[in-house]
């Protein structure tokens, strides 16, 4: 049977743009049909903005790569119309075990908070993730949405023409030129576009190699994340075992710095390592093997006139903490509504600079977290190893040391504190988690959930407060979502949005982040907050 990542999902077909007398001009061209490029295209197209995706390949990600997807990206995918498939297929997990040497030092339960539609995490192979995104793009296309995937379209050259970007593209039938009002570069960590534009990508390389193997086996390991520090089967290094759908297991083995990558990748060298870990009798097949070195780095700026970088092209993190694809989806979530408003002429071009400010902040937070995890997992000096081992020894006996164990801090969304789009908090007693800049936490509402009613537009959420049903300000229509204590059977809404306040009015952005909040409706203040959140003030 062919694996999904071996089948061309968007094979090359000739586009009329290749025969155009003068180069065709497109609204938004996206380079890269990875998770981030596909998400950007779906988001744009479902809001009626033309999105053309170019990829030099025609298949989904080779091998699993990303496997852990967090709650916030799943919520974003719900807004994009394909969250349910991911959750249905994915493996939900909550339990983790940490081993040190030959003993288990402790286990943890993520204990996800109740009252959210989506689980804290699912494990799903990146190739499924991309396949479902491609399916969603195809469904939109067949409904007539302006979206197109062009396989085997390799971008060779980009030229900034001031009010547009010119692209030179290679195909199996020769080259053509295309113009884009806006270009989103989602061409991955090695971003050729970044290189063509001579832009920097600075950060830190971790001098270590990891063997990543996905194996298919019928084993009765539980659905848990197992992490080993210095295990007997991989002395002095670390190891990870994590379950994916279809009986596929992710195994990460740290190998150290001085190794021969090509040798280590050979099945005759990989299989004995895996047997030492899994036991001699466990039968397994190798699905995918790769060797990685990790880096944490980002571009200085993500926006360069009409070329905008998103996902791995803009920032790269080590995988400990699952922040790569998870944070890339937050990039496009942040970008697309802004780009749409700029294209529609309802916001100034400068609104896009807030994408830079907010997502650079997000990238720095992710880089900080994943660098710290990597430093814990792969101590770089004798002293850091001594402290690391001390934490692990203590964690077996004393609870206090367990929060110090860092085998990956799982991805949580960033709060845009200090963003130029925020209006200062005006809800006395309001919970810190829903302060301006925060992503809205979900909450049960009657038979559904709050987040399903938010997003894609500005919303005025009122809880036990009066306000007009719609409000027009500078070409933006804000729609009210009126809730009261009666909608809140579990009390989660009050706990997450009211705190000690009796009533609240929230201005919520199209990406479900809080822009402003008050204890009651004040028209002048609301209008000012709308202008501010759209870069008009």
């Amino acid at each position: 049977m062919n694996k999904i990542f071996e089948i061309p999902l968007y094979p090359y077909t000739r586009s009329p743009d290749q025969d155009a007398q003068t180069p065709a001009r497109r609204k938004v061209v996206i380079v890269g049909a990875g998770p981030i490029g596909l998400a950007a295209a779906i988001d744009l197209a479902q809001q009626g903005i033309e999105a053309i995706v170019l990829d030099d390949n025609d298949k989904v990600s080779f091998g699993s790569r990303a496997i852990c997807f967090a709650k916030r990206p799943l919520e974003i995918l719900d807004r994009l119309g394909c969250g349910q498939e991911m959750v249905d297929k994915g493996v939900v997990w909550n339990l983790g075990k940490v081993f040190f040497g030959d003993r288990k030092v402790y286990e943890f339960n993520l204990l996800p908070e109740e009252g959210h539609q989506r689980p804290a995490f699912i494990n799903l192979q990146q190739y499924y993730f991309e396949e479902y995104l491609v399916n969603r793009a195809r469904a939109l296309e067949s409904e007539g949405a302006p979206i197109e995937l062009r396989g085997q379209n390799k971008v060779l050259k980009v030229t900034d023409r001031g009010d547009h970007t010119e692209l030179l593209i290679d195909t199996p039938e020769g080259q053509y030129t295309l113009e884009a009002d806006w270009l989103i570069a989602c061409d991955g960590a090695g971003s050729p576009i970044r290189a063509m534009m001579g832009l920097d990508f600075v950060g830190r390389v971790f001098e270590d190699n990891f063997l990543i193997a996905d194996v298919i086996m019928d084993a009765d390991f539980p659905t848990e994340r197992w992490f080993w520090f210095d295990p007997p089967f991989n002395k002095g290094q670390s190891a990870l075992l994590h379950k994916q759908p279809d009986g596929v297991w992710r195994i990460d083995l740290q190998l150290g710095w001085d190794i021969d990558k090509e040798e280590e990748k050979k099945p005759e060298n990989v299989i004995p390592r895996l047997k030492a870990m899994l036991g001699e009798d466990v039968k397994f097949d190798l699905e995918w093997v790769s060797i990685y070195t990790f880096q944490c780095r980002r571009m200085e700026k993500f926006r360069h006139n009409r070329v905008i970088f998103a996902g791995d092209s803009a920032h790269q993190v080590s995988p400990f903490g699952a922040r790569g694809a998870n944070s890339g989806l937050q990039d496009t979530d942040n970008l697309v509504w802004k780009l749409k408003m700029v294209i529609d002429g309802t916001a100034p071009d400068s609104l896009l600079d807030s994408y830079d400010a907010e997502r650079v902040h997000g990238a720095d937070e992710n880089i900080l977290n994943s660098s710290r995890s990597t430093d814990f997992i792969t101590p770089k000096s004798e002293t850091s190893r001594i402290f690391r081992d001390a934490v692990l020894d203590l964690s077996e006996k004393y609870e206090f040391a367990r929060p110090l164990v860092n085998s990956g801090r799982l991805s949580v969304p960033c709060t845009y504190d200090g963003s130029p789009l925020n209006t200062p908090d005006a809800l006395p007693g309001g919970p810190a988690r829903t302060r301006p800049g925060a992503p809205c936490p979900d909450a049960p509402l009657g038979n559904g959930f709050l987040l399903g009613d938010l997003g894609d537009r500005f919303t005025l959420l009122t809880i036990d407060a009066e306000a007009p049903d719609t409000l027009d300000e500078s070409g933006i229509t804000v729609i009210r979502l009126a809730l009261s204590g009666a909608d809140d059977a579990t009390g989660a809404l009050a706990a997450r949005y009211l705190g000690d306040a009796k009533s609240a009015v929230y201005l919520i952005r199209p990406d479900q982040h809080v822009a402003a909040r008050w204890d009651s409706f004040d028209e002048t203040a609301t209008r000012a907050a709308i202008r501010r959140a759209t870069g008009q003030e």
Partner: protein
Amino acid sequence: MADLILKPNLAQADDVYADLLAAHEGLSKEDSDALNARLILILANHIGDRAVLRAALDAARTAAPAG
């Protein structure tokens, strides 16, 4: 927030010092280093105040000539 105490604060200074040495007696360098690290982490948790710990780190750093 409490300030870092750098005035004498141990009633039985000689006893405390002797306890420290006794705990390390007979240990290899490696085991001693590990013990010290565990001790620092336990004490850090007991203090439970990042500002005090940072002041302590500064005091420790600047107390001896740089090596």
